[in-house]
């Protein structure tokens, strides 16, 4: 479709069109709930705004639109695809929230508004070409999420989790601001491309290194990479499950995009300068990736609470995607983007099942899942698919995306390299370890006997969202071309920033 449909309406603001639609929704939600007091209406409106925003985005994306706004935002194949990812997350979570018994009923309009605001923040990050905009976007998403975490019914754990999240978030923000200001002091600009240019003329200095390290630490919290991960299990466990899902599949992706936009672009640009320490930074990221995936997977084995287990598994998944940062090739980025998409569906789907079961009174412990296959055959089967996909069992989506991602570690843009083969092997080994704890859940569901054999009926919106995830996990597994093509365009677009 031709992008002019949108550009005629939005004019100069076309680059921000999907966000503008969402921002309207953010403003409208509390008013709508105040006047109607009807959660179904608010949910429908939220879904409608997000869907319109998604359609606008799709038209721009498929129309091949490229444009910027004030040099701060730039819409291209990369930002379009990432915006689509956040919109999918928002639609999945928005769909189920009203029927979840965990989410507060008192401030439903505010909840929906904040959910959309957090999504807008993530979309900001996806389109940003300026450090300040990235910072603002991350803060918008984070501050909204702090409140979302606290909005849970009858559970003191939520308030505690929210407080932890705020403190950790505040500290990571402080680190980030420190890094950004230091960087600004060194180069005098905040535009990403301009920074990359300046760095190429100035070379790598200690001041620059310190700025980078504090920023890596600050944004490391957002993706929960080891050693900045300790908040994630507590917060995911404490928050209502739809919010946990939102944080695991949405917020984390935002952090990864920041990594791609700032560090990847900058260090790839730096490879043209001999004094630029790209090789050292690649090793740094490789170490972070290796430790993150290994710690995430090993600690997940010891978990008995399924939300904590999924939280640790999310940490491990972020570790896999950090391989992109070590390899720093366009091919790896394609694999990373692909895995980010499959992760949305498999991890999101798994969290949604946990959330759906909590609604019907099944607990969060893995032992509570005993005999689930008899009580809810569809949910059990869907859970089996999601978990096996996470573990990388073919022909599910998780296998295919991991295959692309891991193979990138041994096959860079310039041909085969042996530098990162160890990282690929470690990732394969980690996938095998992860099967151990996923299989425990499957065993509980399919093999162990439950105390009750009563059939379970979960709310319909949950079933719809889960069914969408099931279809995606299978389709992306057997027909990866659907996402690999756009992902290749996106990776090329990001690399053209250099």
């Amino acid at each position, binding site marked *: 479709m031709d992008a002019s449909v949108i550009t005629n309406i939005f004019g100069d603001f076309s680059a921000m069109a999907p966000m503008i639609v969402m921002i309207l929704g953010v403003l409208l939600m509390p008013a709508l709930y105040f006047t109607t007091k009807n959660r179904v209406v608010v949910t429908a409106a939220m879904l409608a705004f997000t869907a319109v925003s998604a359609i606008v985005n799709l038209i721009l994306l498929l129309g091949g639109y490229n444009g910027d706004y004030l040099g701060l935002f730039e819409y291209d194949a990369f930002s379009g695809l990432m915006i689509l990812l956040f919109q999918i997350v928002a639609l999945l979570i928005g769909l189920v929230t009203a029927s979840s018994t965990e989410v507060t009923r008192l401030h439903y309009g505010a909840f929906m508004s904040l959910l959309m605001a957090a999504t807008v923040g993530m979309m900001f990050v996806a389109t940003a070409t300026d450090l300040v905009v990235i910072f603002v976007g991350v803060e918008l998403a984070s501050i909204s999420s702090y409140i979302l975490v606290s909005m849970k019914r009858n559970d003191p754990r939520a308030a505690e989790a929210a407080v*932890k999240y705020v*403190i950790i978030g505040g500290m990571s923000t402080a680190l980030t601001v420190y890094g950004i200001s230091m960087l600004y002091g060194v180069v005098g600009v905040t535009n990403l491309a301009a920074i990359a240019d300046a760095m190429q003329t100035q070379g790598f200095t200690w001041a620059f290194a310190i700025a980078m390290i504090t920023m890596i630490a600050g944004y490391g919290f957002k993706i929960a990479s080891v050693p900045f991960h300790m908040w994630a299990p507590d917060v995911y466990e404490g928050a209502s499950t739809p919010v946990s899902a939102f944080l695991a599949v949405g917020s984390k992706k935002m952090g990864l995009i920041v990594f791609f936009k700032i560090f990847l672009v900058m260090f790839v640009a730096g490879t043209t300068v001999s004094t630029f320490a790209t090789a050292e930074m690649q090793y740094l990221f490789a170490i972070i990736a290796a430790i993150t995936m290994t710690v995430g997977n090993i600690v997940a084995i010891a978990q008995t609470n399924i939300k904590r287990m999924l939280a640790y598994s999310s940490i491990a998944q972020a570790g896999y995607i950090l391989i992109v940062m070590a390899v720093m090739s366009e091919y790896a980025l394609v694999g990373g983007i692909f895995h980010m998409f499959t992760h949305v569906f498999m991890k999101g789907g798994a969290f949604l099942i946990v959330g759906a079961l909590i609604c019907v009174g099944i607990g969060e412990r893995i032992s509570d899942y005993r005999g689930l296959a008899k009580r809810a055959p569809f949910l059990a089967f869907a859970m089996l698919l999601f978990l096996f996909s996470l573990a990388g069992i073919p022909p599910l989506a998780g296998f295919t995306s991991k295959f692309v991602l891991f193979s990138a570690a041994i096959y860079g843009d310039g041909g085969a390299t042996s530098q990162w083969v160890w990282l690929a092997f470690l990732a394969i080994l980690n996938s095998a370890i992860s099967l151990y704890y996923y299989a425990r859940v499957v065993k509980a569901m399919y093999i162990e006997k439950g105390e009750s054999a009563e059939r379970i009926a979960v709310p319909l919106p949950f079933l719809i969202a889960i069914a969408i995830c099931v279809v995606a996990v299978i389709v992306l597994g057997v027909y990866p071309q659907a996402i690999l093509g756009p992902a290749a365009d996106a990776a090329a677009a990001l690399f053209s920033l250099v």
Partner: protein
Amino acid sequence: MMFIEYTWLVPLIPAICFLIVGFFGNMFDKRHGGGFLAIAGVAVSCVLSVLISAEFFMSSAYVDVGYVAKSFTWFAFPGGFDINIGYYVDTLSCLMMMFASFISMLILIYSLGYMSEEGKRKQRYFAEVALFVTGMLGLAVSNNFLMMFIFWEVMGLCSYLLIGFWSFSHPEGDDASDNAASAAKKAFLVTRLGDVSLMAGLFILLFAFKSLDYTVVFDAASIAAVDHNLIVLASLLIFGGAIGKSAQFPLLDWLPDAMAGPTTVSALIHAATMVKAGVYLVARCFPIFTEASGVMLFVAVIGGFTAFFAATMAMNNMNIKKVLAYSTLSQLGYMFLALGAGGYMIAIGMESGNTALIAAGSVGYVAGCLHMVNHAFFKALLFLGSGSVIHSTGTEDMREMGGLESKMKVTSITMLIGSLSIAGFPFFAGFWSKDLILEQVLHAGDYGAAGWVFIVLWLLAVVTAFMTAFYMFRMWYMTFRGPMHKKSEHSHGESPRSMTIPLMVLSVFAFGFGFVLFFGFDSLLSIQIIGGQFRMGGMESGGAHYLVEFFTNVWTYVTIALVLLAIYLAKNMYELGKIDPARFNGDGESWLYKALTERWWFPQLYDQLSWKLGYGVARGVEFIDSNIIDGSVNGLSNAVAGSGELVSKAQTGDVNNYASAVIGGLIVLFVAVVALFVFMGGL
């Protein structure tokens, strides 16, 4: 090319049956849960396989290049190469397709009777078996390693589901169902260890060849262009996958436990599918495995040792299915030994340009493949026969059987044929392949610096042949002869027709399949190397050639004598009672007897490793993670505040605690960067 074009249907038909039976089985076929459809589907695949094979052997492609392959792009890799899907037909895949589909079909027919009391759950059973067969047939016709790996994993998943079939409610009670659950998980996880290795091997191949297609990887020109060491590494890693799937040492422990599933599933796993995939993989990868004689030596050593090691554990087991399970491990070991010995000679022949040696080595390949098919027939027969006995007596313990011959005529005779075949009694199928293997191993001992290893392996293999004959006839005499026990007296007698007919069909093959060697069919099981290029399907050597080799070789007679001695011993010990078994084991008190019943303490070792060590590490890391990284005050606050999860959690929210974590992380990052710069000499 009338039929070959439709090769993709061979795995697809069972896959469709899986979907239909899985969703609607109980609706259209109440009595059998869709079993007839599953049988029909596999039967169509079987017929199609035969037609494809016949067409292929008569085609010019067979003579010219040795294969017919077709591939379509599945997805284009951003790295500049494609991953394809497609089919690859050569003699090896024809062989696999035919015997896997034929035996699976017989097992499914048998299941109609065997699973008749399972009620509604038959739908699940037949659907899962159909998917299992899909996995095996898909593996056989795949044209690249990734596709092969996908079907490989599908089979792993099915085995998990089928071994755990009785985990909800086992006919023999709760203990047995827990047992089924843990066995299923063990099978899944242990074979996964091998899969990790295989996956890593595939990555190496992808890295080296920039393709995973058989046509590229097995091409002599592309092999020559690739770093030799990479191929060796890839071969070893791929063989790791075969070790896991075919339950070779040291990953052999899951297979005996997998007996917890229904006996038909054991027959399927042991005879037609699953464990044969590992043998297939090694046979398939001959062009790259033979790049280094060391790789083939490794294959042979693992195979030879497993053959011996597993046979020892079968000597005193009282469970009829477990005896058969150990014998499968042992026979699989024979297959790897044969492939390894043959491949070793080929590798040395290729290095030194000795074409006679290459031709001699290809006989090892023939022996391995022939034993794979023979084993499929007699092991399916033996498992189904043991299933018939279990069905009739309701026990798996051989001490509770005995004297069943009079009650179960068909079962006892067919099982006798199976036992004679596996024991290597002259002129039965197993005799020809086993003897060929022994001869090959001895032959391999004449070449290369590592030749002496093959002499040792040969000795082990001969001893194994003796043990095999002994434990098989121990099983047969304990079950069908000797004094009758209570459970035998109350047995239901002979099993229904749907169960005995497959037994009779299989016994014909278990007796006669070895004769294919003498009708020119050996060329179908063979390989040849023309101008350095491997080709499946070899020259016909003719029956006389083998007959002369067998019967002019003095060792053949020695082995036959050992087999007869073993049968004689078993008869005296377990039918006539002239020799008391207690004389050899000190009434079950000797250390050897205990070692064997404890399976050389392997299960305990695994439990220690996987459970204690694995879980211990996980707990340890978690402890460090939550108590040291996540703030050292935690333990203190717990002690002060008493207990209560909430309290301790709230304490974790301490701001100081988090601040120290943040600073700690930052310092770690700084140190890492400085260390990297110092180490790598940057800045």
